[in-house]
């Protein structure tokens, strides 16, 4: 099997997004095969646990992310999806009470190993937050290029990079005439795409997205889903979403998380098609069919 061209995926989205059940939508997405070597070996979580103080928030999650795929994390609120996501680029340790156990391998090397430069990890594993958070003191252009300044990277041609990132985030056409106005003056959906462009500018290998569309209208959501589909050939994407339709539309693999009062666990992972059509676990089935709880 070969990796599809981007155009193909785009068309497919258009035709499948509107009709059918979740499993139909997912089934219609052809399986992409891992193996784009330019993207590195991938990201693997091995037996990851997470704590906040005494509270055990996440237990024993092992999950592989193939290069060039989109993986959706689904599950009810409070089951540890965000916590897990934040262990993948070491943002978890930003919370003072946080602790963790297990390994996260990026290209085969543990990002929690002693002596690892955490800023390099976060350069390779970028993040888009739930609430759009453009830097208020910067213009649109400065926002996109902020990562270069923060991480002290050099580029040959800033203008090209600026255009490329905004183009990839699907925002170029809307902002190209006002690159020097400030980022807060954009709509919520545009701000979120600006944040995606900002994350892309440092050329991450993996992009983590925590409910990137939860604050957006359907139009902006669709634009961002298109963006994700276009990006997925060049970036490995992990996306948390509460929207089953969205998971079915954009992801290749889906992992279901659940907490039964104790720490959150990963119940099941599989191709998105399988999870939505014939899940192995009864709890997964209840959740994806809406009979949960």
């Amino acid at each position, binding site marked *: 099997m070969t990796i599809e061209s981007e155009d193909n995926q785009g068309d497919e989205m258009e035709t499948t997004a509107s009709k059918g059940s979740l499993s139909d939508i997912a089934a219609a997405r052809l399986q992409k095969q891992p193996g784009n070597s330019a993207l590195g070996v991938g990201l693997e979580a091995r037996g990851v646990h997470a704590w906040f103080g005494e509270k055990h928030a996440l237990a024993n999650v092992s999950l592989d992310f193939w290069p060039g795929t989109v993986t959706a994390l689904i599950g009810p609120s409070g089951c540890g999806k965000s916590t897990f996501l934040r262990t993948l680029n070491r943002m978890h340790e*930003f919370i003072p009470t946080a602790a963790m156990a297990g390994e996260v391998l990026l290209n085969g090397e543990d990002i929690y190993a002693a002596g690892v430069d955490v800023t390099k990890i*976060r*350069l390779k594993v970028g993040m888009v937050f739930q609430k759009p*958070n453009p*830097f208020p003191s910067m213009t649109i252009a400065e926002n996109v290029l902020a990562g270069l300044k*923060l*991480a002290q990277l050099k580029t040959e041609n800033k203008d090209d990079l600026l255009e490329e990132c905004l183009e990839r985030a699907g925002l170029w056409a809307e902002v190209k005439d006002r690159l020097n106005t400030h980022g807060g003056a954009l709509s919520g959906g545009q701000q979120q795409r600006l944040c995606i462009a*900002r994350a892309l500018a440092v050329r991450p290998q993996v992009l983590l997205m925590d409910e990137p569309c939860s604050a957006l209208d359907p139009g902006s959501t669709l634009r961002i889903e298109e963006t994700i589909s276009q990006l997925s050939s060049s970036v490995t994407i992990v996306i948390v979403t509460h929207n089953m339709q969205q998971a079915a539309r954009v992801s290749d693999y889906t992992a279901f998380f659940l907490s039964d009062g104790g720490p959150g666990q990963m119940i099941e992972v599989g191709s998105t098609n399988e999870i939505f059509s014939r899940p192995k676990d009864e709890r997964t089935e209840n959740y994806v069919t809406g009979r949960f709880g």
Partner: protein
Amino acid sequence: MSIIEKPVTPKPRKPWAATPVDRAKTGGIVLAALAVSFVFVAVTPMSGKLAYAAIFCLAYLVIDFVVSFVKAGRPAAVDSFFRGLVTTAIVIAVMPIVSILVTVWVRGHKGLHWTLFTKDMHSNSFTDPIGQGGLLHAIIGTFLLVFFAMIISVPIGILTALYLTEIRGKFTRPIEFLVQAMSGVPSIVAGLFIYAAILIPFTKTVNGFQGSLALAILMIPTVARTSQEVLKLIPSDLREAGVALGGTQWRSVALVVVPAARSGLITAMILGVARVAGETAPILLLTGGSGTKNYNIFNGSLGSLPNYVWQAFAAGTPESIARAWAGILVLLVIVVILFTAARILGNRKVGKK
């Protein structure tokens, strides 16, 4: 052409605004309260403007409460009572400030003369008629004192605030406590500290810089605490976004957090300046009060506005007292100009290149 009538746009109204009847009622209560206060002052031993004001407020609250109670019942009466109480409190809080401003203007404008801003006092005495000599030397002195105090205290204050909000190390609690305690230090104590630590053992004479040091001690807690409050308001989202882009904490603070807080930090700085611009005690102790222009803060006696005011009052003639009030007026105006400048600087939008 068209024969269809244009749709009529209704006139905008405010159905919730007070009707003439409401206003008449309020006016009636005010009149009644006034009457009560006159009667009280007449029949009781109380007297003076303050008595009128106090009884008027009380009477207004009581009558308003009773009227609302009769018309609309208890909840409405309590509501209106508290509204009255809060209004009264605001008036009481603002009264001294307004009274100070009015007094300064009324007494100070007589002493104003353009020579104030062009001449110093090296060949005049405070008892000379207005129009001879001026306070240019004092304006220069105050400017130098405050400027150097600012140069010392703003970096220290903002770095302290950054330590407290961004680094949050082991010493956060004790330092926070210390900063709070320091903001209560009386200015004379700061003056005496510099006097004992620098003037006596080393310089053995007055100069401006010692005054700046004492003012800096007073400014640091104000700058640090205000900056800390401002930095706390910056959403942690922004810090996380900066770090998630591969910045170190230091770069993320310097490039994202501080610029986002810029206008607030400028306000913190100005509040610090306003806190010390009129400080008198440490200045009297440390800088001397020369009547001649002195541009060198490190050498020689340095005049300043508070010192000028103090000396002018001490001279005690009508001319010198008029000079003193004019000095106070100039000081107030300088502080107001600083505040306005800070607002304008702080509110300037980004993205103008």
